[in-house]
């Protein structure tokens, strides 16, 4: 009964989404206020019904209703309750329902926080978001209904993939989707601007905080995904250039370019068409990413063919959204006046350079991700593009990007002076280069990669500090500096922390695979690991061989670690659960390979010493905090008050 209710709620939501899409768009075109006024209630109603549907699915999972196919495939009666909840988005169907729910949430947020926008703008933005929602709801209802029944009902479920049974995975997907779907707001603003022809600094100011918030969520989502891979895959790696990772990284790069380009459009009125194009690209890549990961194309192009309806729908939808928006862009963008002239050396020019570099990086990731899929789809054989390609391309491209990151915020708008910049920055440059050259020598001898990483990291930190000092000199006080300034500097600082972490862990980590019998020990990076054997251990839905490894340094016992090798009851799938001892300066990481004799006394054991790995996540957290801080800047709210009267009049009308 409850699943049918969920199904019904989805149908109602689809009808409301249609209403939200069609009527306000017509109203905006004709200047009909009554039709435009439909947008807000329809959007909010849609959110309520999608939420009801979502709760119905949660209910089916929590109560172990194995007569629902989705539940039977992805849950299990012994699965702990929290994972039964997260299993709602563990499957193809459930993840698309989460997507729709988050889209409805963003739409509702726009409908609430848009009192200061002109009515036709609101109508168009909500209308476009309604159209996207129509597409997704139709996809859910026709090809991927999460409420489909299974007759006869299964006796028990097949369990959730054990890899996903981790608390990193509880928050990773919702955060990632908040980012993906958040770009739908930027997309809707861009389409609304193209439709209305109103593309000015005010437009950029409206769409900027939304874009920044979406970007911050996406950053958080990617960080959590990387953190999960590090802890859960048992290989100690934090980024594999896997297509699933690239799928989330591509919209992030486009979004990063977008928030920088929006800054120019808001402050100087330049780059208008470019900014709109980036907004279209960012959301198109979000859609592509969702479909790549969630349709099964990545595990095999042929998985696509197992359900031709899904494949055809997805391709059609992508073609309509990407093709349609680009066609609209091609039609309307040339009519937009470009404003704001600027010199070849100015903040605008530097931000343009930043955008060019980011797009080149984006292109290289896109090529490496899609080319093997294309070749496979055309039946021209199987190839793979691995980390060596991405590393060879990405690091050189990041060099100018990181260098510009130091100069850009200090350069004047419109026209900056090169000699002046040299005077302001020469010490920072000298110290950075010296750090880059000398630090590796004190660690492990000269190393070009480490030199580059340390120099860039130091360069960004110093330029951030110079930025603060110059503001203070001009009479600013730390507490009164605008939040957008704090946000930008924090995000840039986070980048520096992340780069330092990556440099240290990539160049100075130590790793060893070793056969260990009970009582054996091995020494790595000064730590001595003593293997004390394994014991049987029963978890809620798995059995495990639980190892005990004592770690000591200089003869002093430090701590005991418990890596596990698990076998999950329902699927019989083995899983390595690594043990990690984290701290601010390093992680000690131990994973059990496999037993090497019949009594399971000797094991293959993998030990890692990972210096400064946690700085990676710290860096990302700084970027996220910076993003939220920048989005909460006062001027976005001042704009609310200043234009409130016109909004109120329009409301009354």
């Amino acid at each position, binding site marked *: 009964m409850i699943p049918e209710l969920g199904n019904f709620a989805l149908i109602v939501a689809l009808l409301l989404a249609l209403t939200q899409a069609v009527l306000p768009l017509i109203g905006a075109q004709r200047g009909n206020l009554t039709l435009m006024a439909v947008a807000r209630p329809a959007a909010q109603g849609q959110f309520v019904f999608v939420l009801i549907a979502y709760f119905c699915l949660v209910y089916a999972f929590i109560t172990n209703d194995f007569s629902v196919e989705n539940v039977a495939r992805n849950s299990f009666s012994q699965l702990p309750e929290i994972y039964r909840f997260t299993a709602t988005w563990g499957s193809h169907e459930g993840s698309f329902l989460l997507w729709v729910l988050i889209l409805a949430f963003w739409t509702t947020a726009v409908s609430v926080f848009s009192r200061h926008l002109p009515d036709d703008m609101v109508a168009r933005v909500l209308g476009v978001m309604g159209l996207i929602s129509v597409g997704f709801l139709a996809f859910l209802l026709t090809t991927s209904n999460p409420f489909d029944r299974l007759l006869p009902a299964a006796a028990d479920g097949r369990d959730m993939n054990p890899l996903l049974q981790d608390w990193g995975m509880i928050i990773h997907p919702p955060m990632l989707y908040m980012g993906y779907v958040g770009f739908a707001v930027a997309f809707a603003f861009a389409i609304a601007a193209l439709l209305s022809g109103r593309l000015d600094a005010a437009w950029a100011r409206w769409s900027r905080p939304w874009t920044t918030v979406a970007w911050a969520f996406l950053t958080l989502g990617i960080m959590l995904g990387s953190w999960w891979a590090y802890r859960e895959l048992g290989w100690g790696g934090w980024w594999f250039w896997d297509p699933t990772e690239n799928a989330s990284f591509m919209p992030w790069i486009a979004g990063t370019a977008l928030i920088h380009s929006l800054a120019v459009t808001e402050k100087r009125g330049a780059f208008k068409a470019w900014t709109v194009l980036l907004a279209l690209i960012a959301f198109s890549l979000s859609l592509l990413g969702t479909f790549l990961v969630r349709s099964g194309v990545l595990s*095999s192009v042929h998985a696509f063919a197992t359900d031709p309806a899904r494949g055809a729908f997805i391709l059609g939808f992508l073609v309509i959204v990407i093709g349609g928006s680009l066609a609209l862009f091609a039609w309307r963008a040339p009519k937009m006046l470009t404003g704001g002239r600027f010199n070849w050396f100015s903040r605008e020019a530097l931000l343009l350079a930043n955008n060019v570099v980011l797009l*080149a990086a984006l292109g290289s990731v896109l090529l490496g991700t899609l080319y093997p899929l294309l070749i496979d789809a055309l039946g021209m054989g*199987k190839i793979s593009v691995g980390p060596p390609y991405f590393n060879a391309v990405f690091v050189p491209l990041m060099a100018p990007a990181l260098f510009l990151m130091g100069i850009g915020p200090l350069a004047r708008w419109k026209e900056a002076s090169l000699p002046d910049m040299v005077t302001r920055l020469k010490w920072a440059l000298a110290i950075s280069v010296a750090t880059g050259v000398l630090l590796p020598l004190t660690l492990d001898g000269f190393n070009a990669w480490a030199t580059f990483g340390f120099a860039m990291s130091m360069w960004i930190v110093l330029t951030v500090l110079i930025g603060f000092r110059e503001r203070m000199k001009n009479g600013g006080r730390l507490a009164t500096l605008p939040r957008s300034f704090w946000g930008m500097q924090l995000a840039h600082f986070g980048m520096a922390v992340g780069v330092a972490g990556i440099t240290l862990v990539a160049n100075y980590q130590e790793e060893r695979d070793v056969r260990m019998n009970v009582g054996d020990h091995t020494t790595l990076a000064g730590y001595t690991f003593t293997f004390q054997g394994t014991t049987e251990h029963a978890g809620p839905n798995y059995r495990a061989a639980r190892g005990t490894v004592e770690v000591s340094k200089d003869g002093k016992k430090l701590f005991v670690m418990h890596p596990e090798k698990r076998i999950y009851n329902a699927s019989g799938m083995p899983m390595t659960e690594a043990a990690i001892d984290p701290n601010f300066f390093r992680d000690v990481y131990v994973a059990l390979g496999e037993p090497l004799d019949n009594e399971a006394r000797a094991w293959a054991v993998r030990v890692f010493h990972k210096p400064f790995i946690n700085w990676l996540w710290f860096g990302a957290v700084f970027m996220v905090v910076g993003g939220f801080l920048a989005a909460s800047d006062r001027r976005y709210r001042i704009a609310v008050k200043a234009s409130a009267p016109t909004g109120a009049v329009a409301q009354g009308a």
Partner: protein
Amino acid sequence: MKSRHKKLLVIVLGVAGLGIAAALILNAFQSNLVFFFSPTEVSAGKAPIDRAFRIGGLVEDGSVKRDPDGLTVRFVVTDTAKSMPVIYKGILPDLFKEGKGVVAEGKIGGDGVFAASQVLAKHDENYMPPEAAQALEQAAKAQKSLVQ
């Protein structure tokens, strides 16, 4: 320099920069593509000698042997028509099993043994790596046409 000249210079530099980036990208792309070959193709001499590639198929039953150091593993990858001995030093992925699909990346050594630098497994028990599945399919087709 006049401002018009400066502008021109910036444009030229920009285009040159993009050109260099594109050249870098395509060059790295060319030299880092990893091709896939089935054991049948390898034994027909189609695989490159000095370049890394991937092979895939099933781990032959009873073929997994460990050296006394416990970490060096030898096994045979088969597509049911031809097979290929593989040597790998390190910890195997969780889902590595005799009779199951596998994909390995590495080079052929002087002794004709495939020295794997990486053994790949996917995240699902029932899942067959697509490369391995294709190798089996091709071998089956080839055998059928031989019988006819």
